[in-house]
Structure formats: C-alpha cells, structure tokens
C-alpha cells in the first residue's frame, strides 16, 4: 500500500453528483491520492477556511486515472459546508491515509455495508473483481440510504428486501458455498453484529471503522478503539481497516 505519509495537496473538484439531499459524490484530481488502495481515507478541508474547524475524514470511494471520489453523507456543519462545494472549487486534502482491506487474488468475498458504510466498499469491489466472486449486501434506514448493490435491505421502497443487512449476512453465511472473507463497513452496532455472526460462522471479517479524528496520522491519540488485547488502537494509523478479532466489541 502506498505510504504517502505527509502528502497534502490542493485538489480541484472536477465533478459533483448529488444523489439526494443526504448524499453526494465529489470527484477530485490528484494523481498521488488516486493511487490509494481500497480502505484508505483522506482528511479534507474546504478552502479557504474562514474559521477554525477540523478536517473531515472521508474514505476513498473510487478512483479513475488521476482522479478520486469521496461519497459524502451530510450530517453536520462540516459536511454541510462541503455540500456547497462546486466543480472547479479547490479543496485541501491530506492522504491517502491508513491501511487498506486485504486484496484477495481469488475466492469468494462478501461485502456488507450499512448507510454511508457503502463508501469504501466501492473501490474494494472493483479491485477484487478480476479474480474473486463477490456479493454485496447493502442496507439503509430509508430509501435515500440505498445505493447499487447485489441485494438491498430497507424497510422503505420496493427495490429492497425488508429487514436489516445483518439478516442478509446471517442467511448468506448459512447458505452453502461458503465465503472466504467478509468485508464490512457501517454503524458500530451493525459491525459488532457482523463480528458475532462471522465468528460463529468461522469466516474472517475485515471491518472499516470510524472514530472522531483530529490529526489523522496517529499523533493525537484521539481516534482510539479498544483492542481485545487491552489498550487502544488508533483508527487512523492502525486502521481504519481491522480484523474483527482485534477489536474489543464489548467496550
């Protein structure tokens, strides 16, 4: 994985897709960051910044030549400000940061996402495809949270199955054929449930975690996640991708 420690660039927004009032995708141009591997993230700051606010951590959602995409869910002031960005605008980006998912050369990979957890799995799915069989289960609380995947779970709308994406995971793990690895990203409770199901089924699970971040590079110890071995790991530096067994899901 490219260790671009210390890389920071002012990137131009080349394209913006507004999916609905809650989600949008920005495509930015930077050849170095576009070398990101699936699972890595960037720390992004709208330019120019008039008042103090921390950078926003966002997964690399996709890459194309010298451009990369972030899929953003609007949740608060920072993401709202980002939603006002227009093509042609410049953004100050640090990255790519963190580790990445295990890129299997072959085998059967199950992708499980909830809500904005969809973001990092897009690039993963594209990179796994050549040699792997993949299935992508995606769940959303409302129809606005749904994106293209193999099976959708939602209590709203006609395109999706009723219920939780973890119900889908349970079924998929029980079905014959088996899976070599599960990759999951979504709310913490969903990931904890995935961890339980995969442990039971004996299938390795890699999760992409979120935590409140300040530095994004392992300096501030802000993004701590409890380790099964005691103590804490840094989501930004030791992750954001973890083997589910490394994480203490009970704390």
């Amino acid at each position, binding site marked *: 994985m490219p260790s671009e420690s210390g890389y*920071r660039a002012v990137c131009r927004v080349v394209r913006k897709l507004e999916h609905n009032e809650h989600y949008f995708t920005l495509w930015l141009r930077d050849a170095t960051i576009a070398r990101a591997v699936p699972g890595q993230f960037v720390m992004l700051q709208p330019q120019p910044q008039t008042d103090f606010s921390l950078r926003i951590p966002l997964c690399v959602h996709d890459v194309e030549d010298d451009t990369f995409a972030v899929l953003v869910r609007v949740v608060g002031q920072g993401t709202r400000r980002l939603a006002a960005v227009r093509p042609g605008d410049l953004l100050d980006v640090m990255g790519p940061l963190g580790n990445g998912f295990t890129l299997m050369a072959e085998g059967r990979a199950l992708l499980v996402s909830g809500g904005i957890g969809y973001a990092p799995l897009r690039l993963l799915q594209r990179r796994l495809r050549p040699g792997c069989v993949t299935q992508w289960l995606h769940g959303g609380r409302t129809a606005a949270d749904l994106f293209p995947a193999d099976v959708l779970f939602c209590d709203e709308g006609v395109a999706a199955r009723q219920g939780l994406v973890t119900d889908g995971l349970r079924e998929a793990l029980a079905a014959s054929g088996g899976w070599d690895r599960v990759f999951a990203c979504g709310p913490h409770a969903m990931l904890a449930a995935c961890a339980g199901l995969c442990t039971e089924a004996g299938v390795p699970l890699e999760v992409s975690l979120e935590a409140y971040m300040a530095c994004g590079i392992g300096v*501030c*110890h802000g993004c701590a996640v409890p380790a099964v071995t005691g103590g804490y790991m840094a989501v930004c530096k030791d992750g954001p991708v973890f083997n589910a067994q490394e994480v203490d899901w009970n704390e």
Partner: protein
Amino acid sequence: MNRLSTKLGRIELANPVTVASGTFGLESGDWYDLSRLGALVSKTITLEPRAGNQPPRLFETSGGLLNSIGLQNPGLEAFLRDELPLYAAVGPPLMVSFSAGTVDEFCRMVETMEKHEGIAGYEVNVSCPNVEREGMAFGTDAQVVYDLTRRLAALTQRELCVKLTPNVTDIVTIARAAQEGGATSLALINTLLGMAIDPETGHSRIARGVAGYSGPAIKPVAVACVWRVAQAVNIPILAMGGIAGWEDAVELIRAGACAVAVGTAAFVSPDLPVRVLDGLDAFLARKELTLAELVGTATF
C-alpha cells in the same frame, strides 16, 4: 534570522516557535523541515505506560476542540529507548514534557532522565488531574507547585519549565510559586475545562465527561493569563492557546511571551508552525524589531 533568537530560561533558541505538547510533534517532519523549529516538545510522558481514556476522546465545538486523551503514552522507559533518539536527530533543543501522580514520582522521572543525553529541559505538566490531590490538578495549589518545583530544581541544571493550568482562581499566585521554587521558565496555558452533551441523546460527547478545551476559542484566555503572569514574574514564558496564525503569536508575544507553541490548529494545517515562524519573521522585519524588543510591548 538573528532577529528571531530568544532565550527560554537556560536554553538559547534560534527562534521562538515550537509545538504544543501532545499535538503535532516529530510527525510534523512529514510536512516541513522540523529543524526549523526553535525547540521541540514531547508529548507528556509518565513513568509507567498509560493506555489513555475510554473513547470517544474528541469533540469539536465552535472554534475549539474538546479532548480527553488521558495522557496515553508508552511510559518513560520506552520513550527514552524509542523516541528520544529520534528527537535528538532533528536538532533543536528538546523539552521533555512529563507528569506524575506524586512528587516522588516526578523526582524519580527527572533522576532517570538526567542520565540521558539529548534533553535540553523539562516541561513539568502539573496541569493534569492526579492522585495525591483527589482529582484536582497539582498545578492548582501554589504550595504544592512550590514544593514540587523546589524538589525538581535541586535535581537538574537543565531548563525547568512548569506548565500551568488556567483553571485556577489566580494563575499569578501559581506562577510566582513556581518561580520561587526554582522554575526557570513557565509554559501557559494548558487546556480549559469544558464539556459538551449531545442535545438529542443526552450522551456526553466525551466518554469521561469533562474534558480539556483548546483551540482558537481559548486564545483570549491565554492572552489574559500570559499578560497577567508576565507582569508578576521575571522568568520567560512559553505561550500557547489557540494560535492559528502568526498574528496570534505576535499577540501572545506582545502580552509577554518569549516563545510560542502551536497546538490544536496544526491538526488542520500541519505546516502551521513554520508558517507562524515565517509570518513572525516578516512582521519583525517590517517593524524593524527584534523578537526581544517585541516581548511584552502591549499597551493600554
């Protein structure tokens, strides 16, 4: 860059800009030439390793940051073995920030560090809650600060900088106590006490509740503390609290600081310390002043 040189007690600094303990330190080397800093300051080290506090540990508020890291650090031994050599390789004088739960433990740490080269001085972090004083920080009691400083001063000829908390009735009293005890400089300010609650759920934004508050929002408090302390002591002040640009550094220097440290705002711009340095240099050139001439020039 002669106009920028300054003195922090017993050590000469090529310039007055450093990094605040616990924020960007060595790692900033990925963004700029660390050797340009006037000094380096380590994260706060404790005798034993500390795992830190339960997450969430961070929350952003308007203009500021709440943190509750809980002094996560690898402990003195690992620090001296793994990190000290890295600092030494950079060049600028290193101040090791350290903390402890008892006066004896503070002393034992200095005794150990005295045996190692590459340490120019100590930043005594008395602004963290501790065991001897039922959760109150050491730095809130003038007598305790005096006793501690006196014990430590007897153990070292290195720079002895005491880092003060603003969460006191009268920071001047504490500053005087440190000076009388033998501190050769003061660092101020550490974080304010702050808290935030999610209105929707009622959960504290920080697992431990009350946390440390830093960033631009606390700058006016830092300026007031530096100004008041500078009127009352005659040892140099290393100032921090909300610096987000060179103008803020000038403000703290005019209030009485001989050196400044960049903390929270560097999370947004890792190269902020050198931008502060360059801005300060240009300012001094334009005003035809040396740094020493700028110190304490605030007027009414």
